[in-house]
């Protein structure tokens, strides 16, 4: 029929679902998932389709469950600073709803016009603001999800403090649709800050950036974002910016809060950092936030890596990746290093060995390195999900406990939880 319908079948990596269902209520979702599962078909949950190639490729035929028909605000008591929405609402609409009351969900997600709230939480996506405002796990209070048993399971609640029962909201955050289709979420929201500004600093060598990051850790200021970008990533921001074009490394330190606090911090941190610094406090600030946010999806890049390490190791890892030709964006305060292919391309000779070496460094630095996206044929060789961990066996059993038929989004997290039906 229409092009739109064709697009809904897209599962990334050239895979397509056999058909699509588009429930418009949670009851319909329960019904649809139950029916598909009863027929033994796999279920591929899909929101705005902005992260179809995060993780592995769909494993075998199955039905696309498009959640975008679930787009209502269920409850928004702004005085409680919480909101309950259906999972298929876009991040942009959520933002607009909250803005009417001077509030926001302080979570960065690229392509907000398309990305759905359920998708962002299922993918555990976050960006620059995570340092100051937390990760998805810090913002979720309640969840409702539909399992391959065709059951609506709920965890958490609608209040900001609640310890009744096991923490399904956090378990579902980052589960990539492998435990169930997220139907509804209750989230913690915050007031929109009065003011915002960035201080930049530039460095020729990553070692200098490392020193600056050490200093920021003890800063008298309270940044909400500490972004370290190499020159390639900086150029991808496409910002008209009069700062130092020579430095190989750019540090963006972001502040949000009341006017007096932001103004004081901008001055104070420049004194602490020394060297080549500058301030961005005009109308470009909003564009920089969104530029840094969009960069996390590295639009147009075939390969994307994400390392998670102790914060003190960030600059070193970033340096190693930049040497290999990767464009690097690090959420430096949180220990997250993202690397992607820029237009100049990367050194692809011995790619697997290079990634393995950086991964070994990441593991030694208390974390791991995953290949968020790459060519399907190289996923296994590059070790998509990173170095195996001792807790993966428990994760596999958790998947079996909630997805008893093995039908939920098979192929997404194969290394960790197996692929799907009969192949646990």
């Amino acid at each position, binding site marked *: 029929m229409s092009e739109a319908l064709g697009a809904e079948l897209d599962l990334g990596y050239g895979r397509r679902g056999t058909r699509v269902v588009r429930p418009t209520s949670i009851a319909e979702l329960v019904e649809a998932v139950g029916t598909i599962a009863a027929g033994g078909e796999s279920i591929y949950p899909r929101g705005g389709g902005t992260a179809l190639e995060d993780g592995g490729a769909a494993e075998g035929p199955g039905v696309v469950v498009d959640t975008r028909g679930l787009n209502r605000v269920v409850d928004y008591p702004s005085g409680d600073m919480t909101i309950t929405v259906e999972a298929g609402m876009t991040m942009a609409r959520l933002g607009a709803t909250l803005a009417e009351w001077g509030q926001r969900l302080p979570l960065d997600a690229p392509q907000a016009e398309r990305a759905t709230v359920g998708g962002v939480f299922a993918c555990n996506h976050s960006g620059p603001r995570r340092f100051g405002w937390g990760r998805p796990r810090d913002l979720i209070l309640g969840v409702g999800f539909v399992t391959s048993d065709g059951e609506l399971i709920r965890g958490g609640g609608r209040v900001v403090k609640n310890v009744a029962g096991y923490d399904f909201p956090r378990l579902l955050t980052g589960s990539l649709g492998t435990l169930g289709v997220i139907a509804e979420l209750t989230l913690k929201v915050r007031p929109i800050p009065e003011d915002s500004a960035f201080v930049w600093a530039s460095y020729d060598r990553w070692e200098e950036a490392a020193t600056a990051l050490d200093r920021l850790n003890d800063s008298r200021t309270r940044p909400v974002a500490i972004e370290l970008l190499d020159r390639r990533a900086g150029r991808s921001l496409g910002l008209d910016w009069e700062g130092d074009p020579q430095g190989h490394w750019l540090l963006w330190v972001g502040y949000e809060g009341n006017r007096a606090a932001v103004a004081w911090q901008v001055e104070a941190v420049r004194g602490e950092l020394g060297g080549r610094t500058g301030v961005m406090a005009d109308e470009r600030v909003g564009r920089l936030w969104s530029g840094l946010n969009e960069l996390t999806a590295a639009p147009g890049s075939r390969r994307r890596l994400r390392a998670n390490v102790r914060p003190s190791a960030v600059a070193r890892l970033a340096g190693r990746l930049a040497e290999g030709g990767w464009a690097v964006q690090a959420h430096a305060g949180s*220990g997250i290093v993202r690397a992607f292919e820029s237009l100049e391309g990367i050194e692809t000779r011995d790619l697997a060995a290079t990634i393995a070496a950086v991964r070994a460094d990441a593991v030694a630095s208390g974390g791991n390195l995953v290949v968020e996206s790459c060519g399907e044929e190289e996923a296994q060789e590059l070790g998509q999900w990173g170095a195996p961990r001792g807790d993966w066996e*428990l994760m596999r059993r958790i998947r079996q406990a909630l997805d008893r038929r093995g039908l939920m989004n098979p192929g997404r997290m194969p290394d960790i939880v197996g692929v799907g039906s009969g192949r646990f």
Partner: protein
Amino acid sequence: MIARASNRNVLMGETMSVGSPVTALCSELERIVGPENVIAHRDELLVYECDGYVIEKSVPDVVVFPTSTEQVVEVVRLCGSRGVPFVPRGAGTSLAGGTLAVGGGVMVSLTRMKRILEINLRDRYAVVEPGVVNVWLNRALAGTGFHYAPDPSSQGACTIGGNVATNSGGPHTLKYGVTVNHVLGVELVLPDGQVVQTGGVAEDDPGYDLTGLVVGNEGTFGIVTKVIVRLTRDPEGGRTFLGIFDTVDQAASAISGIIAAGIVPAALEMLDQLMIRAVEEAFHFGFPTEAGAVLIIETDGLEAGQEAEAEAIERIVEAHGGQVRKRIPWRTRKEPEYVAIWKSRKSAFGAIGRISPTFCTQDGVVPRTRLPEIMRVIAEVGARYGIRIANVFHAGDGNIHPILLFDERDPDQVRRVLEASHEILDACIRLGGSVTGEHGIGVEKMSFMPRLFTAESLAAMGRIRSVFNPEGRCSPGKLLPGGAGCIERKTPGRKASA
């Protein structure tokens, strides 16, 4: 010689003689942890018959105090091979019977695993053993510019392992979040003796958020033997206000006003009149005993911009019919006046002890905007059952703590306290809230779980528990009603009044 512990427990009916199961178990436990780390004498065991929830009691057969992960592994393996249930325990400050040894068995006290293993300021984490008392960590961090944010009122006694088990809160969660927001990873000994590490010093390990799932498991997954916690930068300073109101409603509307102004205070605590009087009698802080409600409002952060916020708060308090009686500016949380006001708040339960022989602290949550309604319910229920109820609670979170005063020697009062508690908690559910904000389900609130969650959701939780604890040997009779490995029961032990 070791006396018999109890006549109701799993090893019940056995006399303490050479060759009896209890004696055999004790000698094996002594072999693992050393005789100095085992308690099996009836008199000593009585201390462990309950925790902060005194309504139900059950004496464990033996209490063991391991000092290392390896010893915990051996203890749980031994319990496995003997088919004996076990329950982990920290300081026993649970107010929901979370550490009650339902059906007896082995109690694993973690209080001798109390080392702070590592503090890393650059990477903002600390690694601690479960028996480290919450406040010890902050003492160790004093002067570094960093702290561990969750600060339950019992922080002088409660352990970080216990905080992890119950996902504890505290007065400053409004701004800083609860325990789960500050735990990066744990080492967990599963009931089969397997040791698993979830998370780590880095955020966002690939896969499911097992750390998030383990926090709040109430000891039903296994025994946490190490915790990696996140450290938070100290605020530069703050302001703590004492707001006085004629009525609870006025205080509640002032809270709404503060939130609507886009201010997120570090803490927003309310005390009602009965509580104010008890606290004032005990601490003489200068709380006006004629006030209908007192709000402790605290802002913290950078000095810059805080004065404007302080002025806004004073205006809002006054606009809602209140009056700012005290305004305490502080640079650290150690200044005398600051300490005094929070001592009054955090020791409120102690103050209650002066006016009532026994009390039962409830823990319910409502949406913050429904506070006036739930307070009216509490007053009405108290009047109808003839039970005095004092209130001191985390108003900013909508987390109420009605304290029901009674005499545990009077069975009729005990009955009325239980019924009144249940009515209040039912009202919390009706208003869109929960029956526990920070104390946990424990044994006390299992009967509410089917009202909060559908049978399907509870069954899914049961399957999750079985992933970790398939035989239900760890903390049986807790959190989930019925289910695998659980003994269906109405009362686990004798009533306090018995």
